[in-house]
């Protein structure tokens, strides 16, 4: 709405000095933050990679080429490939409804979207066992018809969808609300249909918000442990995702293999972080232009 305003901040100017803390305080705060980050983030990350490559590149690659590992990677990719598009669709429609329309039950919907954040992932997994498990509500019926959900791939996907569905919606709702309805109204008055308005006006305005949400959703879908652990049944080569496989390898004292597989997740985290900061920057730009 407003033209960009260029303000010049300079610590050398008298006003700049008047508004900042003395150098000692500033350096202490920065040092504290850096030490904390090193201890809790950089060191563990370095440990993962150093352990993974401890016995050389060939051992590392062999650990990844092991059939059970490959199958766990495949399962994780399948889970993410199903979960992320579904949650993208759900998140965009929910955010669109909440931000641009008024309806009864809107607050209830917002609360429900937040539910997975407030429920422990283990409980989320347990819910599915209670519903679809053999002792659950529809477990016997499922068994009669030979449909496997719990301790099989469908259960893993269901639990992952539940745990990750707030990410896209939560990212988009505040962004869409901040941008208001005026552009959509303008499009409607000009004769655009609902779908044209959505694809030509709403979507381009939240493009980076969507990418941000998808990246976070994907990272969580691939890295989810608790909920998946409850429903998976830990069948090697069948229902083990990457995080579950790491745990099994570690429990078997197969450290190099465990860290090698874990390094894949670490790579994923690094890439996620990178895309996330680009997306964050772009989202800010989109908000400033509105």
């Amino acid at each position, binding site marked *: *709405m407003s*033209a960009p305003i260029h303000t010049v901040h300079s610590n050398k100017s008298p006003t700049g000095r008047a508004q900042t803390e003395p150098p000692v305080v500033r350096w202490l705060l920065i040092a504290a933050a850096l030490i904390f980050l090193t201890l809790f983030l950089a060191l563990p990350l370095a440990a993962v990679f150093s352990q993974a490559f401890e016995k050389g590149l060939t051992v590392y690659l062999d650990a990844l080429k092991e059939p059970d590992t490959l199958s766990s990677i495949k399962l994780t990719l399948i889970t993410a490939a199903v979960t992320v598009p579904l949650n993208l669709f759900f998140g965009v429609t929910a955010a669109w409804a909440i931000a641009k329309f008024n309806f009864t039950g809107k607050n209830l919907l917002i609360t429900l979207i937040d539910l997975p954040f407030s429920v422990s992932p283990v409980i989320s997994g347990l819910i599915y066992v209670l519903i679809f498990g053999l002792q659950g509500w529809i477990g016997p019926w499922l068994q009669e018809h030979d449909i496997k959900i719990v301790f099989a791939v469908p259960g893993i996907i269901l639990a992952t969808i539940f745990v990750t569905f707030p990410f896209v919606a939560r990212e988009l709702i505040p962004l869409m609300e901040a941008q208001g309805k005026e*552009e959509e*109204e303008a*499009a*409607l*008055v000009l004769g655009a249909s609902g779908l044209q308005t959505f694809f*030509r006006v709403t979507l381009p305005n939240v493009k980076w918000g969507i990418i941000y949400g998808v990246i976070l959703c994907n990272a969580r879908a691939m890295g989810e442990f608790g909920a998946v652990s409850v429903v998976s049944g830990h069948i090697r080569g069948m229902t083990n995702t990457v995080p579950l496989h790491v745990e099994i390898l570690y429990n078997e004292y197969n450290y190099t293999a465990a860290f090698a597989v874990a390094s894949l997740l670490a790579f994923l985290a690094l890439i996620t972080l990178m895309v996330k900061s680009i997306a964050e920057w772009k989202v800010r730009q989109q908000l400033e232009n509105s």
Partner: protein
Amino acid sequence: MSIEIENIAKQFGTFTALGDVTLSIPSGELVALLGPSGSGKTTLLRIIAGLETPDSGRILFNGTDTTQSHVRDRKVGFVFQHYALFKHMTVFDNVAFGLNVRPKETRPTKEEIRERVSKLLRLVQLEGMAGRYPAQLSGGQRQRIALARALAVEPQVLLLDEPFGALDAQVRAELRRWLRKLHDEIHVTSVFVTHDQDEALEVADRIVVMNRGKIEQSGTPDEVYEHPANPFVLNFLGNVNLFHGRLQQTGEQPGAGENAVSYVRSHDIEIDRSPQDSTALCAEVRHIQKLGPAVRVTLAIAGSPELVEAELTRDVFQNLGLQQGESVFVRPRQVRVFVEDYQI
């Protein structure tokens, strides 16, 4: 295209935005909906556009009931206060939007669209800007692009919601003169919302003064200014002074003997060194404030607690050579008296 507004009412929760509003807007006129914030003027405009649904009443375009028809079928042009330009599109794509979203059968060819857009950009005097993005334009330029975008679909009715509200004073004055000129060229029935009486008086063919969800008065700028229907209209169109009193019995006049308030506009108060006639009142100069070309003098009437504001031109002020604390005589040139519902 004429617009008939019949008994429109709209409620937001417990707040009555519009209570039974009836108004007819003749074809080709430029009408201003004038009122303070919360008077329902924007709601009325949005109901005409179809962006809001009335609780009751009807909207007729050229005699046809359009109350139930969808926004996109009403063929209206709408200009928003904050422009609502599509940020991610160039100026060209913004203006062409209404044409590009048409179904294939009625969509003009690319060449026709290009021609129409450049014609419109010429009309709003922004020919060289087709490739720019809204963020690269000034406020006044953005609003002109918003207008070009609204006109691109050849609307039967042009609706403008506080179109100059977000602009600074100089650009605003320039743009409203330009809008008046544009309307004289294209003659599309236009309704614009404003809370600025100068803007309404300068631009509109007709002014509809609104207050608390009701129409107080509707008429030409001269009518509403010279013959305000009630104290609200008088108050809203310029500074007024109030004199409380009781009407004297003079024949069979309605309301005689009742309490009444007389209103005098501040530029209708004359200041003299000596009493001109029996209506002159003795007063003391309390305060002098210079406002560009005009001078505002606050006076205390002798024997009354009321303060009176008079607005003089700089020339008159200098000829009088007024000083603070001086005693002078004031005489109202034109007085309007309102008793309850009666106007005298």
